[in-house]
């Protein structure tokens, strides 16, 4: 792997993780805030709120995982390496 491909792969890996984590991070923060407020207002619905939070977090965090996987593939199993 030449140096330009290596440098571009490292930069792309960083951008994939960094940019890919912005949206899910904001979404998870607002979802967690709403869930904690809901549990505080209505403690008897804690199980349902946590269950819905688990489902929504699993879908939200998969977006972060996509970026993470792309970054790891670029770093450890680069398909553009000669």
């Amino acid at each position, binding site marked *: 792997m030449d140096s330009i491909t290596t440098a571009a792969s490292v930069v792309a890996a960083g951008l994939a993780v960094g940019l890919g984590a912005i949206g899910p991070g904001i979404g*998870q*923060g607002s979802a*967690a805030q709403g*869930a*904690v407020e809901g*549990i*505080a207002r209505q*403690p*008897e*619905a*804690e*199980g*349902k709120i*946590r*269950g819905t*939070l*688990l*489902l929504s*977090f*699993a*879908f939200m*965090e*998969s977006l*972060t*995982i996509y970026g*993470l*996987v792309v970054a*790891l*593939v670029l770093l*450890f*199993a680069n398909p553009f390496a000669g």
Partner: protein
Amino acid sequence: MIDSAGLYKRASEPLLASSPLQSDPAPPEGGEVLLETSSDLGTSSDQLVNFESSLEASNKAETDEYARLQLRIYLLTLIVTAFAASITAIVFDLFSAISLLVGGLSGLLYLRLLARSIGKLGKSSNSLGKIQLVVPVLLVLVVTKSPQLELLPSLLGFLLYKPSLIIQVLLESKT
């Protein structure tokens, strides 16, 4: 006779006058109000204790519901992973099926860690833990270092928890 009767009448008047006074069961109003207030206090404290115990019971039931939801999701993920691994073993080769199985089990571990982080949210921590993100990192590292495992089936196997979540949501919406 008359005198004696009159005397008797006069003698019986105080008895008649005093007996209703002694047998009058009505207590003064102030005492009755005090008694009612104290009995109300006792009833309200009992109601408060009953409310707290019912609240604790409902919280425990909700926690049990969350645990049951987790178990259902894990079971569905296991079923979907086993089904997909068997299909892959039939259609493709055994190594791809093993890679898919490894990815599915790591997805299950990721889901377990995510559920634990969500369970701690609001109780012992104010933000979601990031420990579950170690699982895909370790999966990719192990798969790229191991010559028998393949990357694409293991990543697809890792993402097999999403169909199980969708199935769980569909089952919940039906019931």
